């Protein structure tokens, strides 16, 4: 069964970049343009999302808010969440981990690096 990954970012370029990287490795990708959109998509999906990749700085609901929301939901409290961020400041990363992210990647990164990170969680 295909693993499903939800990618959340307000930049279509990043979305495409990440989607291509993952689709090339055989993952199924669902995308959302901000935290709010992600929450809506994830709650309307019939299949279970296996992993979430999210940006931090986004309109409507930002990455912290999204992670927080997911962690307070029984269904997603265990789902691995990878933060994609271009915030270089340490405190931003720490804050992300504190609200419940599993790990983070600093933009820019090579597709291989992203796939590596994903496989850490989705290796059977």
């Amino acid at each position, binding site marked *: 069964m295909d693993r499903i990954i939800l990618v959340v970012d307000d930049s279509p370029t990043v979305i495409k970049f990440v989607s291509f990287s993952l689709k090339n490795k055989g993952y199924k990708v669902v995308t959302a343009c901000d935290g709010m959109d992600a929450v809506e998509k994830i709650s309307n999906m019939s299949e279970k999302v296996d992993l979430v990749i999210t940006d931090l700085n986004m309109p*409507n609901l930002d990455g912290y808010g999204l992670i927080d929301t997911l962690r307070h939901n029984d269904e997603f409290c265990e789902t691995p969440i990878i933060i994609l961020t271009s915030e270089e400041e340490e405190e931003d990363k720490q804050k992300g981990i504190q609200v419940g992210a599993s790990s983070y990647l600093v933009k820019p990164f090579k597709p291989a690096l992203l796939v590596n990170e994903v496989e850490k969680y989705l290796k059977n």
Partner: protein
Amino acid sequence: MSEDTDFEMEEMQEIIDDFLVEADELISSLDNNLVELESQPENLDLLNEIFRAAHTIKGTSSFLGFDQVTDLTHKMEDILNKLRKSDLKVSTNIMDILLESLDLLKVLIENVREHKDEKLDLDDIIKRLVVAFEGKDQPASPEPALEVTNLPENTTTETKTVTKEVSEVQPASILSSASTPVPVVDEEHTNDEIKSKPPKKASEQTIRVDVDRLDTLMNMMGELVLGRNSMVQTVGKLVSDNEGDYNLEQLTSSSNSINFITTELQMAVMKMRMQPIGKVFKKVPRLVRDLSRDSGKDIALVIKGEATELDKSVIEEIGDPLVHIIRNSCDHGIESPEDRIAAGKPKQGTVQLIAEQEGSNIIIKIVDDGRGLDVEAIRNKAVERNLTSRTEVDNMSDKEVFKYIFGAGFSTAKKVTDVSGRGVGMDVVRTNIEKLNGMIELESELGQGTTISIKLPLTLAIIQGLLVQSDEEVYILPLSSVHETVKSEHSEIYYVNKKPVLRLREDVIPIINLGEVLRESSAGFTLTEKPYIVVVGLAESKIGIIIDKFLGQEEVVIKSLGDYLGTTEGVAGATILGDGRIRLIVDLIGLFNIAKKIK
């Protein structure tokens, strides 16, 4: 370009294409928002939006390895971050640096688009960005209100590294001259609205479609319209010949519904090609800001009706003429603050840019409250350049005299400036408007200001045609260019230089015989017993066309005449009418040209 080999070439190109579209949108929003920020330096939502745009460009460009873009936006982002955290205050100096960075960013993005590998020299701007970031610009500003606050003592890792770089820079080099921010009064988006405006979503409910596909669709739509016209006409004939036939009644009702649906479909296809004129208007606030800065004038810009939509092809052509006109308004129209006060006017001049729809046309008005046109100066200039005689020009109405400014090389400006006054402007404007089958009108009162109105058809491919008959031949005139139709009264026709003209209210309009002009017959002006005159307009001029009969109005699709007939002057193309016959569509630009040549 990224040396990344993890993607296929096509995938990479697709990502880059997406990046370019996204960058264009973000840059255009930056352009507007930055200018707006100057008049609302305290608007935090605006600042956040600006910050996010720079942040996003930085993030995405870094993925693709466009390092220069990343470096530049990174430094911009640093300043914007401080601004939104109130660690720095918006100053004209900072605005100048940011806007200049934005201009460089545009060049960088263009280079990416054109696959140019060349690097720009960004050292200077990056140094200045860093100095501004440090808050060291402390301009010897003539406007103390805009002075920069001192840098608070927060020392993040970032500031430390930056300080080192700064030590080599001479802060004096970045001081700039006095300036005037442009308050943009946007009546449709007041401050409150900006605050409540939802941030742009990345995946809006839209898809991008290749323009070629839309063009194909439009072409097929044209064929469908022609087929429909012919069907409706045939069915109508059949029914009148065979009354009471049940099957025919059925056919009539099907034909009616196809007729109706075709019209709806045509509207839908046309709407698909429509874009809000705001797309073009977006460039204007920045333009006015820069012009007023450079000239030391105080100019407010009012934009209305930017949601008015028109065909993509029209949008593409209207940008340059608009820029020309606005430049003229700011440069020649609006006076310096001192002159305005001396003339008893408010210190701040106003330029209005208004778009509105009127039937199947759009009207764009550029209104300024500046010094207006000096009719006498234009009269003198026209005589001086041998365009007309003294007696003639003195008898002309002001409106007619103004038309001279649309002539090539005509300028009454006493001094030629960087931006305008070289006498090329209005000529270019006229040519562009003509190409779009548009009309242009100018009204001006000395000391009160100038209004320029441009009337354009909403779309170019399918036009409303007026079918007229002249000498046994049927021609189609684009209805959007028709001013009015009049019954010719011989008492109102006069001769100037042996050419007939019609006196219509205040106007004196030259008249031509359509058939004769198209045949380039030497006569061209025979006034037979033709009872009607169609007054058509093209850019700033009008002409009367004498015809025998009005045959009606029909939607026509312009088809080119094909290569072997090539460019026949005076003929825009042909179309197939409902009765299956091919008719010529008159090209007014060509017609005007031929009419001018006939002696």
